[in-house]
């Protein structure tokens, strides 16, 4: 058996779920996430000799992130909504993507609402949040995946959480539903 593939199966394949979860949240599309992850795994496999064992996960997710960006550029050219477009104007984009107040008032599925809010977060904020809350990654690891300083990771996380808190928790607590606390 090929040495590199054994190592890849043991060290990279265990992170396939993490790769898919990140791509799915970034693209908001299962089909696109599947395509991206398959492409990313193949790229990772080709470049696998260059990575040390304990750094495989951040390295792999960085590749997934890059593939998502490439996908977004292609989608923009094809005239679809791209994942990076809200970054420049985050708050406005976030608000515009919220469910309308009437739907919220009739209490549309609570979980679905939160998912849509996360999906509406500016993409860099969303990525930091996914890596922290879903993958339990440290600030240093998130910085590695996203290629920014740790201070930037911290402020993105803070912004993502503040946006979610304002849009979701405050509304739930202010409304007729019993609180989440």
């Amino acid at each position, binding site marked *: 058996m090929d040495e590199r593939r054994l190592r890849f199966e043991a060290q990279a394949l265990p992170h396939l779920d993490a790769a898919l979860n990140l791509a799915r949240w970034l693209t908001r599309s299962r089909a696109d996430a599947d395509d991206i992850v*398959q492409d990313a795994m193949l790229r990772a496999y080709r470049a696998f000799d260059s990575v040390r064992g304990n750094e495989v996960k951040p390295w792999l997710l960085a590749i997934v992130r890059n593939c998502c960006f490439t996908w977004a550029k292609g989608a923009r050219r094809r005239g679809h909504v791209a994942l990076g477009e809200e970054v420049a104007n985050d708050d406005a984009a976030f608000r515009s993507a919220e469910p309308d107040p009437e739907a919220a008032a009739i209490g549309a599925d609570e979980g679905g609402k939160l998912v849509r809010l996360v999906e509406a977060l500016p993409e860099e904020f969303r990525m930091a949040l996914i890596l922290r809350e879903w993958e339990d990654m440290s600030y240093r690891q998130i910085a590695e995946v996203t290629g920014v300083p740790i201070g930037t990771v911290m402020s993105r996380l803070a912004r993502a959480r503040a946006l979610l808190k304002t849009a979701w928790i405050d509304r739930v607590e202010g409304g007729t539903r019993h609180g*989440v606390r």
Partner: protein
Amino acid sequence: MACDKALSVQALFDGELDATASAEIERHMVACAECDALFKDLASTRAALREHAPYYRADAALRSSVARALAKETGSRDALGAFFARTRQFWSGAISGAAGAGLAAAFVMFTVMAPVDDRLVADLTGAHLRSLMADHLIDVASSDHHTVKPWFAGHADVSPPVADFAAEGYALIGGRADYIDGRRAAVIVYRHGKHVINVFAWAGREALANETERNGYHIVAWHMDDLAFAAVSDTAVPEIEGLKRLIVGETQSGNKPPTP
């Protein structure tokens, strides 16, 4: 508007501060209502995400297409056949036919050469991973320990103590029979936040290190009576230790006479 300690509060919440810095920001939070509220908001947000936002997982179709792409990249037809045979076993736990026999031979060679610890660790992480990949996490789905424990009696060589710790954040979701080091093991499956923790129990006195890390998975091992235990998860060691303490505590209290 925001207190300039806000990012430190978040760092405390995320477990990024050392003891000195933690103590300092905790003192600040006593005096600063804004930071105190922020910490609670962070906890509420995390709880809401854990409750409502899914962890999307790769399905069988994606796993197959990734496997095919890797095999194609590696090239050789022989390798392709072996790869499918092995990945099939990897996913379903079923070994059949000539490919299975070849695999078994290769496996024996590997186990003979590997030291005990290493082989056990590989078995445990392999079984953990297989359980997540194959939709074969549980054989008996239940949060009721009264149904899980008897199930083990008929399906595994051992019948370890089973308890639900949902109130402490470790929800019992079921049980499974698996193989560790060639022996039938009972696996008690817990969900902790977004993470699955597989607790393996088998008859043995192997000297596993208390804590082991392999490929991003953590293993916490211990012994109780004549059983060896190993809790495996991708969550952090202190979280796994928490479950271990509950299980050990439950067993000790379970040895006392029942209280009415």
